[in-house]
């Protein structure tokens, strides 16, 4: 078997291939040679073969048969083998292959190797592709290496630790002691990776964050040294001393200073210093400034500093370098929420960026422009944005259109302007408008009653020439259907009215129906519109009938159904037609929060010509009840029960209950009879917080006796009471109705009325049948609000069927116990 060719040879050979097929052939040949070489277990040439295999892998050819060979190389004693082996492991293996676990032992041995480079290799591989099992096994070794004095290994161990923490977050505490003097290092590499490690720990755990806050002074000192130290050749990049470390420290300071006044104050000086002293002629300086600005905006900095930061961003915007402008726009987007006015000052520059050729900058500028729109600048901004919509790439149009709709809805100075803007968007970017915008627009148009004629006229003119843009056609069809009569009568005030005949209108709608470009949804809109016009137009009803009957046999099921139903309307239900096809009422305005929420308002594509059901006025809506329930069941912080301890029934329970009863009445006067040795517990109310939020417990502790409100003809109604902890004027009464006769009482309805100073709420009963012989009860909950703490009185009315006849009774309940309303 001849010696396998060298990597260089292979590469040279492959480069001579002129076609993809030739290349594939060469690679396959070489793969076969490599495979047979692997089979021969040839130690000398293994690393050569694996190197070639890695190259072929990079070109995209399968190389999985080399995985085990990589492991053998790692296990070898030679550094050369190990190097290629580990590289192969990093490129070919990852946690999805089971083979990778075999590496664990090798890595463990290598982590303790005498040569630092071998240790470095092992750390590197573990840090790149170590799975969580491997990390768990080897975390101890990594931690040991984190404390070594060898800076080459220390920095690698730090990054490896970051990887371990990412994979197995529970091991974070293990690395905590090793971080103690990481920042005391002189070596910048170690410093850099240590800061990365600290950043990762702080981001993952708020405890760590609090723990590391004390490092802020040290970090500030290091940063200061970096800035003031003058020229140091080894760390210099374009005249600035180790900018990478500076940027990392700034980022860590940002995380530490967030939401913490003390740390933020400690950083103020150094941030101001960096911001003013850094040279901005090269990218390096700008990178540091950018990071500084982000930090200033994120921590609780003083306002002077913030203004400085925004001004720096403003300067960035005017920079010629596109990269700088890009990052400036990105960070302005982040800060526009908090410092809106400051960003407004740069509005004109931002709007100019809309015209930039660079796609990334345009996108950022567009997002920022939408964020800056407010009531004052809406007209100017909208002009710019509409112009942008005209000329931008298709990928932007949908977002831009949605943004414009949103902005117009929030800040439109007048209805006419709003409608004009919408029209403009529909005509320029009609096909990119999102589908859910159509119902929203329709609702908007319905609501601006005085603009109907103007709107329909403009829409008509718009689709006359071109009816390919679906959203536009849908809105237009709907409007023409609704307001066709206004169109034909030429009533428009805002504009020159045009002369349109009924036939012309029907022409356009029919062409929409026939056109190939119309989707089936659009056709549905058009057909319904034609139908609606049958009540609005006078002389073309026959034509409409004809059109509708044609579509009764359409292939599209939706159209067919509509046509058939409309046909039926003409034939059998002609008397109902005018009522059904009446003008739509003004629709309820539902506030929208964003383009995605529009879909909830009017999901139907066809506005249903049905009357909206009035909300049921009978039984009280239970949502209010739920609120009250929440009040009762929610957490209490001060469990003060308003009941006075006067007539506490002595038999309320054992000593325990008495004790608890006393502690509950912490707010009550100290004339509580039973001694309470327990109150020496510190903060007893917290102990009982959880307990006292249960209404049941209230009942026992306060001991409001239940009453029999009504007892006649075998029907007995009992009231049991509960008081709310959080709201002392609410009493909850649970009624229980029982029947001692031998026949069931069916259709039982309980009604109650209270004097005017009270408010009453009846929840739904458990059932409407009171079973005979007291075998069961109906329960129903009543809530009484008694803000003036007057004596409770109630009049009740009972209706039920018993023994085949309907019974009805009125009664007054006066025997409410004082605890239930005091």
């Amino acid at each position, binding site marked *: 078997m001849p010696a396998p060719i*060298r*990597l*260089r040879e292979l*590469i*040279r050979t492959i*480069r001579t291939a002129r076609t993809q097929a030739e290349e594939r052939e060469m690679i396959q040949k070489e793969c076969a040679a490599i495979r047979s070489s692997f089979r021969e277990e040839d130690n*000398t040439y293994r690393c*050569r073969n694996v*190197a070639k295999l*890695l*190259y072929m892998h*990079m070109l*995209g050819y399968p190389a999985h048969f080399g995985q085990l060979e990589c492991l053998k190389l790692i296990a070898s004693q*030679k*550094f*050369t083998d190990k*190097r290629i082996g580990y*590289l192969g492991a*990093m490129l070919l293996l990852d*946690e*999805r292959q089971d083979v990778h676990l075999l590496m664990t032992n090798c890595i463990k041995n290598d982590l303790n190797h005498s040569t630092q*480079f071998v240790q470095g290799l092992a*750390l*590197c591989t573990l*840090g*790149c*592709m170590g799975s969580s099992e491997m990390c768990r096994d080897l975390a101890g070794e990594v931690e040991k290496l984190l404390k070594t004095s060898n800076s*080459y290994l220390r*920095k*690698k161990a730090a*990054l*490896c630790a*970051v990887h371990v923490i990412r994979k197995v977050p529970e091991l974070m505490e293990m690395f905590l002691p090793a971080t103690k003097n990481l920042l005391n290092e002189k070596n*910048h*590499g170690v410093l*850099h*990776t240590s800061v*990365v490690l600290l950043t990762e720990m702080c981001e993952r755990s708020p405890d760590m964050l609090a723990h590391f806050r004390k490092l802020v002074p040290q970090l500030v000192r290091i940063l200061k040294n970096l800035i003031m130290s003058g020229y140091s050749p*080894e*760390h210099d*990049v374009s005249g600035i001393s180790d900018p*990478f*470390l500076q*940027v990392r420290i700034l*980022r860590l300071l940002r995380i530490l200073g967030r939401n913490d006044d003390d740390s933020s104050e400690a950083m103020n000086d150094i941030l101001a210093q960096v911001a003013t002293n850094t040279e901005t002629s090269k*990218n*390096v300086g*700008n*990178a540091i400034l*950018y*990071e500084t600005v982000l930090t200033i905006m994120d921590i609780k900095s003083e306002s002077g500093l913030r203004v400085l930061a925004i001004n720096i961003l403003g300067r960035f915007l005017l920079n010629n370098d*596109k*990269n700088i*402008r*890009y*990052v400036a726009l990105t960070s302005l987007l982040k800060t526009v929420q908090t410092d809106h006015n400051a960003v407004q000052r740069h509005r004109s520059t931002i709007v100019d960026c809309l015209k930039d*050729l*660079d796609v*990334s*900058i345009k996108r950022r500028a567009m997002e920022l422009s939408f964020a800056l729109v407010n009531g004052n600048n809406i007209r100017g901004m909208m002009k710019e944005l509409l112009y942008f919509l005209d000329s931008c790439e298709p990928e932007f149009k949908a977002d831009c259109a949605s943004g414009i709709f949103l902005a117009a809805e929030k800040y439109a100075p007048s209805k006419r302007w709003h409608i004009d803007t919408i029209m403009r968007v529909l005509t320029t970017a009609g096909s990119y408008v999102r589908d859910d915008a159509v119902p929203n627009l329709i609702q908007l148009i319905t609501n601006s009653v005085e603009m109907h004629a103007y709107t329909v006229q403009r829409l008509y003119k718009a689709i006359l020439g071109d009816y390919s843009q679906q959203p536009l056609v849908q809105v237009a069809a709907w409007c023409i259907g609704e307001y066709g009569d206004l169109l034909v009568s030429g009533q428009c005030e805002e504009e020159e009215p045009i002369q349109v005949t009924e036939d012309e209108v029907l022409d356009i709608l029919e062409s929409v129906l026939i056109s190939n470009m119309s989707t089936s949804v659009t056709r549905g809109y058009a057909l319904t519109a034609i139908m609606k016009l049958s009540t609005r137009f006078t002389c073309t009803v026959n034509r409409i009938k004809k059109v509708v009957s044609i579509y009764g046999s359409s292939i599209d099921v939706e159209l067919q159904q509509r046509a058939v139903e409309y046909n039926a309307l003409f034939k059998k239900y002609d008397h109902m037609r005018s009522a059904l096809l009446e003008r739509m009422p003004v629709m309820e305005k539902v506030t929208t929060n964003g383009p995605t929420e529009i879909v909830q308002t009017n999901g139907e594509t066809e506005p249903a010509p049905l009357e909206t059901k009035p909300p049921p006025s009978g039984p009280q809506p239970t949502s209010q009840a739920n609120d009250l329930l929440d009040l009762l069941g929610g957490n209490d912080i001060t469990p003060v029960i308003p009941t006075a301890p006067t007539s506490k029934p002595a038999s309320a329970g054992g000593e325990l209950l008495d004790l608890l009863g006393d502690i509950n009445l912490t707010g009550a006067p100290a004339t509580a009879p039973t001694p309470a040795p327990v109150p020496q517990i510190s903060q007893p109310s917290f102990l009982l917080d959880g307990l006292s939020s249960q209404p049941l417990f209230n009942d026992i502790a306060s001991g409001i006796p239940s009453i029999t409100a009504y007892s006649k003809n075998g029907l007995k109604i009992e009231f049991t009471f509960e008081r709310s902890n959080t709201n002392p004027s609410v009493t909850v009464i649970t009624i229980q109705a029982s029947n001692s006769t031998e026949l069931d009482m069916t259709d039982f309805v309980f009604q109650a009325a209270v004097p005017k100073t009270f408010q009453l709420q009846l929840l739904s009963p458990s059932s409407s049948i009171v079973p005979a012989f007291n075998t069961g009860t109906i329960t129903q909950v009543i809530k009484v609000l008694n803000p003036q703490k007057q004596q409770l009185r109630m009049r009740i009315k009972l209706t039920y069927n018993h023994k085949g006849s309907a019974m009805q009774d009125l009664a007054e309940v006066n025997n409410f116990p004082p605890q239930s309303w005091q």
Partner: protein
Amino acid sequence: MIKAILIFSNQGKPWLSKFYQPYSEDTQQQIIGETFHLVSKRDENVCNFLEGGLLIGRSDNKLIYRHYATLYFVFYVDSSESELGIFDLIQVFVETLDKCFENVCELDLIFHVDKVHNILVEMVMGGMVLETNMNEIVTQIDTQNKLEKSEYLIPHFDNHDRE
């Protein structure tokens, strides 16, 4: 964190690909193809930052690239890295390659892929920046290369065997 580092020619042929997150081989090749597609369309004087393509996490991940003569150097990063910082890092990487290979050109990268990997491994580890000091990196690489060479001073193997 850096998600991937790619070097490819003006025609889209990959000369180095290192992924710091597990992707299947097919996905890797697709990512390379998509990246080339995105980057080759760019003009010379637009900004060097792009949103990531579909396969590599859309808007969470950014693509930072630099075009040197016939090569594209592309770094995919997520939001925790500073864009301008990575931009500088690419420069430092290229300068280090220059020092190690003495006036590096595309052919050097093509024929010594493993050496480029070794240099990269000293700079970026597990997706995080390890060392940015050029001299430090070059020293380490030299020492390791010497170590390799010493293993082959045994007579019956010649020095370039492993290549």
